């Protein structure tokens, strides 16, 4: 179970800081739920708080049960090392049998002959499949998913089926700036709004809200750009 109560988060040291307040979320074990927010709307901040990578500015976070890391995230890879070596690290971290786990991951990701090549020398699509398989081959109560477009175009259907299978036995938390990503898997969603998080048990309504918030964001960024341009012109003359 993941519960965020009156959480507020803020970016630091950026030109356009993001500040989110009154975030209230509750994800029970086995839930299929989306967290939707506009691009640059603070989704990574909330993701960090959910996974425990960062503390909120205020509010409380309660996490129980096994929660995955953001899948398919591969920022922790040693790029000069092989897929096998990177999978071994995750196996050690999650205390699972290395041999069984690595063979399952390599099979799911269809790595083939690239298994022992450094990650930096392998195609992106394979790395994306591998990053997804690392998480999917472990057992969690809630899988935190940030991208459902795994691998290349031809791989999409297969990995969507795997996601569906994961969702049938565990919870799925899809964090995305696109409602289309979450719609096929989730029945309900929270939309991150500057005023707080809004809960919907209807994905269509959530998508509409997200579209409104995103437009507002685009409009305000357009306005900011126009103001900046005007300022530049003023400065010039």
């Amino acid at each position, binding site marked *: 179970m993941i519960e965020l109560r009156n959480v507020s988060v803020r970016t*630091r040291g950026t030109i356009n800081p993001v500040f989110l307040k009154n975030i209230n979320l509750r994800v029970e074990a086995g839930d299929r739920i989306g967290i939707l927010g506009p691009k640059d709307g603070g989704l990574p901040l909330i993701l960090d708080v959910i996974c425990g990578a960062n503390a909120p500015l205020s509010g409380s976070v309660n996490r129980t049960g096994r929660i995955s890391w953001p899948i398919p995230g591969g*920022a922790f890879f040693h790029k000069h090392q092989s897929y096998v070596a990177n999978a071994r*690290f995750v196996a050690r*971290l999650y205390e699972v049998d290395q041999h069984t786990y690595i063979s399952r991951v390599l099979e799911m990701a269809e790595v083939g002959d690239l298994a022992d090549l450094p990650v930096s020398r392998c195609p992106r699509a394979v790395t994306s499949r591998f990053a997804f398989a690392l998480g999917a081959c472990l057992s969690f109560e809630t899988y935190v998913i940030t991208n459902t477009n795994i691998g290349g175009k031809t791989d999409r259907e297969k990995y969507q089926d795997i996601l569906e299978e994961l969702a049938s036995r565990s919870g799925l938390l899809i964090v995305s700036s696109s409602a289309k990503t979450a719609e096929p898997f989730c029945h309900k969603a929270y939309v991150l709004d500057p005023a707080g998080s809004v809960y919907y048990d209807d994905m269509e309504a959530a998508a509409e809200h997200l579209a409104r918030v995103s437009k507002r964001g685009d409009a305000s960024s357009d306005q900011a750009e126009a103001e900046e341009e005007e300022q530049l012109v003023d400065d010039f003359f």
Partner: protein
Amino acid sequence: MWKDLNTQFNVIKALTIHNLQGQMSGYKYGFAWLILEPLFFLAGFRLMRKFLGGLASPPGMTPLMFYVLGVFPIFMALNGLKSYSIPVARSKLLGFPRVTPFDLVIATNLSTFAIYFVLFWLMVLPISIYENVWPPQDLMQIMLSLIMAWIMGWSLGLVISAAFRPFPPLKQFIGYANFGLRMSSGMFFCITMLPLNVWPYFTWNPLFQITEVVRDAWYEGYVSPIASPTYVVECTLLLLFLGLSVERHVRRFPKI
């Protein structure tokens, strides 16, 4: 509780191996540079002494071992000091819910300890045999001093992390402090080389005490008049307590 401790042990083990595998990965010869760094230091000091003060080694000690026994404890401690940024900075590995900043601090420092501990013996064995000062007088005291230097370094790093979060420019000042500690901690001098009236200004420094304890424990012919293993242990425990408390406090705040 035992299950949780076992999990944390396995997490730290995995992170330490991950860290060791990533050391110097951006360089062509990887680990070779790690070995070369202290070697360059030793060679630099040797040259400096040759040009500035002749080649006479301090009374009761041999020239090369004198430097080796001074450099390694300081290297271990000052590398640990760099941990000040870990509890407050964002790390890609913190995306794993079971990894905490404290695990990262311990894993980073365990890998540093492993590297310098192996390097220490790789250098000490041939040099001490060459200079005819093998075996050490008190091996246990040497090992414990190295461990104390290591714990002291990262504990001090954790203490500093509290100030680093609200004041990131602290990084610049830590560079100066690092240099000051290197120079004042007995890397290239021992207490008997200093005039008696300046002794009180040096004996408070626990790092200087560690180098004195290590040299005292190695040589039969050198008895340090100030070396106090008890003082070293007390300082280490105090810094460890402070460091762990600060880490517990700092983890409640958002990262930089």
